[in-house]
């Protein structure tokens, strides 16, 4: 690769830059503070000290990146058939499954979501808007912040555009998931090939309802698989549908608001390190037409403001 760069006299890019030690420490401090927010009581001090020790070890070049192993909740396993009759909460999910089973896919999966990094929807914390159309192969379009009412095609990008699970997972696309099992147990087992974490699996199942364009049979299976999670609670009628609590993580339950009549998840609130991550869903549905597509000539919009 660097041979290509040599053809440009002078070199195209400046030589690699190094963070100044002062800058490096500033970012390091911010990271430490962030890490300390997810640590169990009594461990933060020890961890902080150990990372400082680790800095010298890093200079020796020994870097292991099996972080996943260190933070995965043990004990996740494919769903077992539920022996007991479904709870009231599970019945709501089963009703949603029946609804989505009859919804034919379109050309683009359109999402319009308000994402808040902390606090309940509309509450405190930064709020971002996700406005995205995704085609079956994973190509997606978003509305650029500087040009409202239009979309630009995004190319490649990363594995994070819809959803991915597990190390180096590819982006989950319609084309990828279209042949996944249409049974709850089969789907759960399929997802378990990505992660054994029960929490990850619950994330994946909700992603198949919201983030990932998925065929009706897979969406229905995902709802049924969620219904099979132990401890699903019906918390009553709220704006947008039925509120459900599903035991998810040590920090608290996943809170969903579902309209079983439309199959739409109106709200997802995940317990988070320092609060919660919440999504307020305006739109999650198939569309057959895109808004006006404009070229993405500017590499990033913000620099023109």
């Amino acid at each position, binding site marked *: 690769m660097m041979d290509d760069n040599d053809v440009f006299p*002078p070199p195209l890019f400046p030589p690699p*830059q190094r963070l100044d030690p002062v800058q490096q420490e500033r970012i390091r401090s911010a990271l430490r503070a962030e890490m300390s927010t997810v640590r169990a009581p009594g*461990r933060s001090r020890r961890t902080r000290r150990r990372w400082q020790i680790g800095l010298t070890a890093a200079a020796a070049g020994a870097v292991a990146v099996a972080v996943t192993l260190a933070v995965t909740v043990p004990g996740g396993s494919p769903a077992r058939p539920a022996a007991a009759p479904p709870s009231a909460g599970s019945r709501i999910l089963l009703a949603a499954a029946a609804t989505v089973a009859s919804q034919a896919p379109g050309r683009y999966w359109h999402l319009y979501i308000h994402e808040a990094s902390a606090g309940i929807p509309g509450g405190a914390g930064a709020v971002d808007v996700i406005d995205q159309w995704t085609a079956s192969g994973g190509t997606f379009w978003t509305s650029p912040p500087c040009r409202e009412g239009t979309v630009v095609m995004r190319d490649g990008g990363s594995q994070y555009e819809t959803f991915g699970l597990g190390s180096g997972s590819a982006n989950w696309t319609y084309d990828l998931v279209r042949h996944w099992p249409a049974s709850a147990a089969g789907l759960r087992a399929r997802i378990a090939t990505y992660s054994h974490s029960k929490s990850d699996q619950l994330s994946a199942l909700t992603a198949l309802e919201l983030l990932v364009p998925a065929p009706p049979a897979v969406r229905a299976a995902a709802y049924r698989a969620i219904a099979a999670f132990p401890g699903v609670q019906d918390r009553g009628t709220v704006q947008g549908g039925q509120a459900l609590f599903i035991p998810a993580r040590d920090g608290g339950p996943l809170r969903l608001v579902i309209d079983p009549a439309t199959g739409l998840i109106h709200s997802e609130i995940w317990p988070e390190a320092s609060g919660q991550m919440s999504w307020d869903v305006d739109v999650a549905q198939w569309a057959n037409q895109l808004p006006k597509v404009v070229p993405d000539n500017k590499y990033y919009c913000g620099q023109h403001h």
Partner: protein
Amino acid sequence: MRTERAVGEEPPLVAVPASAADRFGDLYEQHCHTVYSHCFRRLGSWSLAEEMTAATFLTAWRRRATAPPASGDVLPWLLAIANNMLRNTRRAQRRHAAALARMGEPEAASDPAEAVAARVDAERQLAAALPALGALPARERAVIELCVGSGLTTAQAAAALGIPAGTVKSRLSRGLSRLRQQLSQPGTKE
């Protein structure tokens, strides 16, 4: 846009073993300069590059459950996150507002004279290249930044961009060809 959302990919909320923080600390020490260079090449601003470097690692920490197991795959993973941050720097700033605020105002570099001289040189060089780079299609520019700028292999760039390696090669070839034309035109070459 979804590019930075991490909800579905968030790691489980559990007590983080000290070893996890240690390992992530190692990862930061090894790759922070490369991520910083990448951000600077895209932004041409030192202070913003620093913020986006911080945002990248803060996001990477939150998404550590998706970190690739092989050490050779980590840099592409980080640069993919960085690219997501760079697509909308204002959103990244908002998302990490609290953490970035804790960083406070930039302080003087530890070796001001040397640092300032190096920065001026780099800025001048980048300023000469940016117009030509900016004229490229975004997809070709992205490949050139990763392969030529950050020195990723074709396979690593493919992983970072989520596209096939063959596509990386063809975009690199086309992009470099376009750049040569750009830079050979009068008025575009420094």
